[in-house]
């Protein structure tokens, strides 16, 4: 690995080199009968268009509107999330943690990229990046500033490092001014980052305006 590559891991020559290598590998594995390229297409389609943070947003909106569901979610999240049809790989053991005015939760995997796929989809690049993995457990308030907001200095912050197979998922606070909103409307306020704890739910004027 040259210094040039180290400084520019996404430059075009590197990508095309890797692209060729991946194409060659797929053809070798196909010819040897180890993979079915059609199965790869289904896997990609699943995570590009079916499994993503809209699933988690539905879970949060349900928790905001249905106290019995919220209680089930916070006491044993995996079956509660399963009620909405979300389950499986990288979501076998989910724990939901709730933000309050006194406590803000943030999720990281300092060892790589552990993330609750069934509710959030595949993790974004920044979640997997060295800066986030390094900084989240030592300076989470600094991370929040990188994301453009500051937490009240009196709010306690708890960082959940996903070092085993438990996958954490943050239930953000329901924004003020949303009384009477439907579950669908509320789901529009729930961002991916708010369910990782690097953001907050959107304010209602952001979606009604």
């Amino acid at each position, binding site marked *: 690995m040259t210094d040039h590559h180290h400084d520019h891991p996404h430059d075009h020559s590197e990508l095309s080199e890797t692209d060729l290598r991946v194409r060659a590998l797929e053809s070798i594995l196909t010819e040897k009968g180890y993979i*079915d390229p*059609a199965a790869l297409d289904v896997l990609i389609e699943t995570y590009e268009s079916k499994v993503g943070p809209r699933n988690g947003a539905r879970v949060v909106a349900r928790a905001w509107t249905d106290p019995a569901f919220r209680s089930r979610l916070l006491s044993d999240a995996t079956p509660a999330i399963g009620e909405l049809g979300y389950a*499986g*790989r990288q979501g*076998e053991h989910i724990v939901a943690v709730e933000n309050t005015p006194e406590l803000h939760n943030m999720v990281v995997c300092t060892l790589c990229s552990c993330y609750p796929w069934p509710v959030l989809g595949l993790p974004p690049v920044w979640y997997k990046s060295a800066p*986030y993995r390094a900084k989240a457990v*030592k300076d*989470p308030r600094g991370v929040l500033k990188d994301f453009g907001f500051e937490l009240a200095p009196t*709010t306690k*912050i708890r960082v959940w490092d996903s070092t085993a197979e438990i996958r954490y998922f943050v239930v953000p606070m329901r924004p003020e001014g949303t009384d009477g909103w439907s579950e669908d409307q509320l789901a529009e306020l729930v961002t991916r980052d708010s369910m990782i704890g690097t953001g907050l739910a959107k304010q209602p004027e952001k979606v009604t305006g």
Partner: protein
Amino acid sequence: MDGAHDMGGAAGFGPVHPEPNEPVFHAAWERRAFAMTLAMAMPGGWNIDMSRFARENRPGADYLGMSYYQIWLAGIERLMQERHLVEADELAAGKVMHPAKPVAKILTADGVAAMLHRGGPTERPVTAPALFAVGDRVRAKDMHPPTHTRLPRYVRGHVGRIDAIRGVHVFPDSNAHGGGEAPQWLYTVSFNGAELWADAPDPLLEVTVDAFEPYLERA
């Protein structure tokens, strides 16, 4: 293993760069590398802990110089070569040069949904009482195994508190190296920020890790 992958608290990486409206994949090859990694586990027969070790166990400059899915790609190449499913000369030439090894099963398109839904639950039946109870003070062992572990360096030697007992789970330190699942009690252990980071104390910071019983001793 004390590798470059274990990044908690490391200095010098700079700020986090969020990317608005980030796509799921940034290049076509990332899609295929991701999907091949999931699909190859079936004929390859390795487990997730073996996959993680295959990605992590490489020189630091190599790990830090590669993008995320390049590391995944290097991981499956290593696992396939170890099992002689694909040989180094084939990877270099980009073509088949040796006969295929017989494999038990491959992932088909109509098997994907069931495979994803099934996932890989790691919880196992309880066979012995848990050593620790919620509220107990524990110290993360100052251990540095050359093999796979999921105890991050930044908590080693520090005292925390058992916050939750998560049941008995497959033990990655054993499972990554073919030693079997050797299930162990898993705990969520919380650490005060000032205990972990004497140089940057945030009195209101708390960090939790999920630690297997062999990682902990009574404090």
